């Protein structure tokens, strides 16, 4: 009986062995291979972003996170209490037990995967953890690469920031080598050139044990090397940008743009207020905390005001009205308008004021009308030209449509006019009237971005072409070898006669000369052209300070637009920012210095002395400047008591 039982038992065992090892073996072999093999995705280091002089605007730094592997976490409480003993240099505990318990409970749902419990841990904490590995079974330190922005908030709006992939975009991105939880560029260049800088993930097959510990690569499966992303060499000049930022009033909102009219290179792209993009690549707790504050900030620091802030151009638009009149042959350099400026202009039953109270500017020609920003002159010119003709030239000078800069989120702005106005305000039943042409002529009808204004004034200086603004200059691989060169692209051909250009340049130069409203933007030894603007807007009694400049005015290498919200007069507030920028450009940058040398072959440039410190002005010049300031202040006084269609930066 006992023998029978034994035989049956033995047979049962052998039959089962045969079933498992022969009949069902295939499935087990497959599972066994999967068990011991992990596909490891190797993300190459992201390409850097550099400015035109090779300064790093974005780079990668190594970072460490502390992870838990629940399967090998044998004694949870002991590990938690050990972790809680770790203190940082200031003596604060790095971990707290309540959070740890929660995190470990969450991690337990995926026993064999690493779960981060502390991101971006300083190196001294990492070394403490590594020294005590034996007491911390189940705790692993993982190395990763994080984005770092050496210039912090200064370059934020151009460079952008990194963030986690939003859920709605993940569906399409998952087919393009992205994994849940990956970071990607969310704004700025980081976003536009995401695919260039990211590179392609590599894959290697690791033999891992049940604790997730890698035991080396699987030799018989070939690994796929990652393709490195390219470095972006941009057209920005970060030092020039810092100079502009320094001159920009910290507490005010606005933007500064500088463009090279010869090729569309964007030299400066600054928007205030800004955000430090480093917070977005720091640990998730810091990120979420700061993100909430940034997102709730009423000053909209994420908004790139240089390309997405739309402002009424105010008097800066007068140069466009002027060039239209000149090119259309309606005015000439010396022609004067029928009505002289007595402080106001009567059209029908409407009395439109000039900003200068009676006795007004008197009789002006185009030069002095631009120089003193006489409204009455441009009211009449606008009425003679009509909205269609003005807008034709506005389009020619790249206004009213997206410029095509390689940044996401650009706005087109709005160029009023009969058709556009009626469409825009159809809901409010507002109709276009001839009187509105007067507003259009002095820049109180449109809304435009600072970048568009910079292109416009650059185009007037250049006289032939307007190039599509661009931030990307070159893409280079990790060995520094040129992979792609971004050649200038012509955006607009300027079909304006030489006479009109010459006259308008003279007018622009007059604005910056002593006695002009923009005298603060002058650079000694360089003929700078500019135009102030103090744009009224429905949001505040204090006008937006606008200033556009181009230098040298007859053969420009730089065009600048400054917009400062609710700051007052363009000459007093915006022009100094442009002045500081231009002075830095011509005294510190290689390009500016060579131009300066061309214009001042005799004078040895004393680099130590900033150009802003001019020789003492003559008494007459001082008086003229004072008068100009008065004009600038009064320019900002409301000329038209009527809400403009749109203003400010909404």
């Amino acid at each position, binding site marked *: 009986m006992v023998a029978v039982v034994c035989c049956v038992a033995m047979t049962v*065992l052998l039959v089962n*062995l045969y079933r*498992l090892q022969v009949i069902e073996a295939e499935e087990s072999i497959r599972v066994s291979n999967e068990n011991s093999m992990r596909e490891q995705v190797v993300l190459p280091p992201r390409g850097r972003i550099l400015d035109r002089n090779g300064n790093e605007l974005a780079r990668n730094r190594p970072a460490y996170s502390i992870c838990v592997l629940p399967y090998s976490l044998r004694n949870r409480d002991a590990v938690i209490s050990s972790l809680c003993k770790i203190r940082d240099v200031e003596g604060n505990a790095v971990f707290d037990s309540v959070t740890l318990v929660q995190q470990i409970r969450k991690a337990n749902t995926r026993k064999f995967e690493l779960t981060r419990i502390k991101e971006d841990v300083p190196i001294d904490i990492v070394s403490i953890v590594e020294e005590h590995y034996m007491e911390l079974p189940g705790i692993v330190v993982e190395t990763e690469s994080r984005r770092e922005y050496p210039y912090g908030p200064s370059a934020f709006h151009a460079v952008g920031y990194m963030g986690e992939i939003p859920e709605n975009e993940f569906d399409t991105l998952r087919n393009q080598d992205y994994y849940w939880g990956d970071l990607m560029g969310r704004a700025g260049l980081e976003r536009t050139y995401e695919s260039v800088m990211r590179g392609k993930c590599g894959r290697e097959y690791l033999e891992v044990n049940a604790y997730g510990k890698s035991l080396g690569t699987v030799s018989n499966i070939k690994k796929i090397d990652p393709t490195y992303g390219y470095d972006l060499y941009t057209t920005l000049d970060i030092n020039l940008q810092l100079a502009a930022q320094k001159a920009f009033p910290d507490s005010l909102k606005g933007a500064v743009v500088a463009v090279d009219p010869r090729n569309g290179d964007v030299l400066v792209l600054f928007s205030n207020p800004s955000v430090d993009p480093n917070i977005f690549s720091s640990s998730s707790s810091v990120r979420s905390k700061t993100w909430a504050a940034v997102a709730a900030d009423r000053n909209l620091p994420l908004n790139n005001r240089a390309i997405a802030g739309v402002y009424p151009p105010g008097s800066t638009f007068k140069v466009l009205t002027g060039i239209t009149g000149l090119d259309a042959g309606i005015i000439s350099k010396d022609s004067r308008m029928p009505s002289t400026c007595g402080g106001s202009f009567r059209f029908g039953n409407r009395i439109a004021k000039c900003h200068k109270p009676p006795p007004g500017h008197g009789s002006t020609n185009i030069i002095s009308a631009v120089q003193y920003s006489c409204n009455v002159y441009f009211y009449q010119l606008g009425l003679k030209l009509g909205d269609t003709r003005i807008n034709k030239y506005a389009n020619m000078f790249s206004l009213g449509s997206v410029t095509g800069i390689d940044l996401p989120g650009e706005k087109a702005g709005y160029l009023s006019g009969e058709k556009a106005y009626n469409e825009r305000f159809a809901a409010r039943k507002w109709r276009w009237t001839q009187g509105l042409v007067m507003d259009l002529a002095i820049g109180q009808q449109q809304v435009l971005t600072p970048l568009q204004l910079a292109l416009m004034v650059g185009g007037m200086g250049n006289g032939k072409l307007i190039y599509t603004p661009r931030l990307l200059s070159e893409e280079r691989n990790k060995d520094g070898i040129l992979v792609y060169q971004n050649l200038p692209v012509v955006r607009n051909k300027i079909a304006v006669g030489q006479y009109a250009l010459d006259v308008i340049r003279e007018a622009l130069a007059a604005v910056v000369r002593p006695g002009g409203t923009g005298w603060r933007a002058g650079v000694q030894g360089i003929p700078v052209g500019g135009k102030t603007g103090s744009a009224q807007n429905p949001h505040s009694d204090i006008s937006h300070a606008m200033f556009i400049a181009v230098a040298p005015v007859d053969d420009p290498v730089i065009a600048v637009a400054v917009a400062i919200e609710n700051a007052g007069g363009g000459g007093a507030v915006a022009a100094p920012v442009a002045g500081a920028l231009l002075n830095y450009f011509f005294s510190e940058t290689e390009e500016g210095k060579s131009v300066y040398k061309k214009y001042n072959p005799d004078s040895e440039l004393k680099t130590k002395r900033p150009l802003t410190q001019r020789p003492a002005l003559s008494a007459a010049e001082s008086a003229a400047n004072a008068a100009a300031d008065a004009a600038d202040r009064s320019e900002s006084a409301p000329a038209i008591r009527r809400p403009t269609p749109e203003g400010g930066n909404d």
Partner: protein
Amino acid sequence: MDDLRRKNSLDFTLLLTAVALWVIGIFLVYSATYIHESGPLAGIYKQQILWVVMALLIVILIISIPARYISKGAYAFYGMSLVMLVLAIATGSGVSAKGAERWILVGGLKIQPSEFAKVGLLLALAKRLSERPVSLYNLPTLIVPVSLILVPFALVLKQPDLGTAMVFCVMALPMFYWSSLTLLDVFYVVSPLISLLLSAIPLLLTFNTGESWGVFEAVPWGLFFLVVVVLLYIFRAPLYIWIGVIVGNITTATVTTVVWGSVLKDYQKMRITSFMNPQADPFGSGYQVIQSKVAIGSGHIFGKGYLQGTQSRLSFLPEQHTDFIFSVLGEQFGLVGCSLVVILFATLIIKGLMVTYGCRNRFINLTAIGCTAILGFHIFVNIAMTLGMTPVTGIPLPFLSYGGSFTMTVAILVGLLLNARVTDQDF
């Protein structure tokens, strides 16, 4: 003459089989743990070598002890093992492994008293049964043997160590049968256990598949109960046996249903049923079973080769150096290796049975059948567990599993078996 030589010479087949298995065990323990460069598992194969050497010494020692001295010391050994069991429970908080009070420290050595209790009970039962035969029809004869079992049984359950408790029962049955009970008597004794199983099977299956059996739940047990009644009637069992068997069967069946329905929590049920459907909880109760089956299955016919097992080398196999050592074997040596080891085990058991059949001395005879039962039960249950046929219980595989106390126990059992052949049987 021939008869004499057979009885008084060392059974080399048995000895060599045991040694071969121990050597295989050392290699398997090495391959299961060599990946650990530090920590508690590093280098434990050396420890196992030491255990095996000690085991051989114990075998030699036991062979050289005349059986009558063993017989005389049986109760003393039993008493000692009980004391150790009590100590383990009393000092339970001292060393706890897997949360169970299973160890006591003797001069730095960790000793598992439940292992020695197996030997203690074996010797005591053999001694008692060899002196006074038991009979179901003379109840007082059962009192002492049943008490002998119940005391260590209760102590081991307290630990709790269900596996060892089962070993006690399984060892006792053939010994009772060998002693004097008929097959029918054994059936009467076992029938409540069968009732338990049969009433549990529909519940387990319902829990596992979620499909209720309805009234058919009672069918398997009902049929069995009918068979029991018919047998009782045919063989004209005395009244108290009628009452005892029927009450016993009904009680276990009822208790099973009640316990399953209202006492056990879902996770406990899960643990019990996980061997039937390990995929239900792949990272929990089913994990060991899945990994073990994958290891053995992926070994295919010739295995992945020594030290080439990915499952074991990469630590996917839990408890691979102790309870799941057979999976290590299966993965690295495939069907061929497994069959070889199973045949070695079979040789051992058959040899054990042959010893039993060849002995005239009742004490030696009962000891031998007990030894064979203990070994056979361990071997079958452990291998069946690694193949996913039975629930995961803490029953190690003789000769192959790592462990000091267990290796010593196996050595004693082998020694006793060998002793039966060489010893003077007239006392």
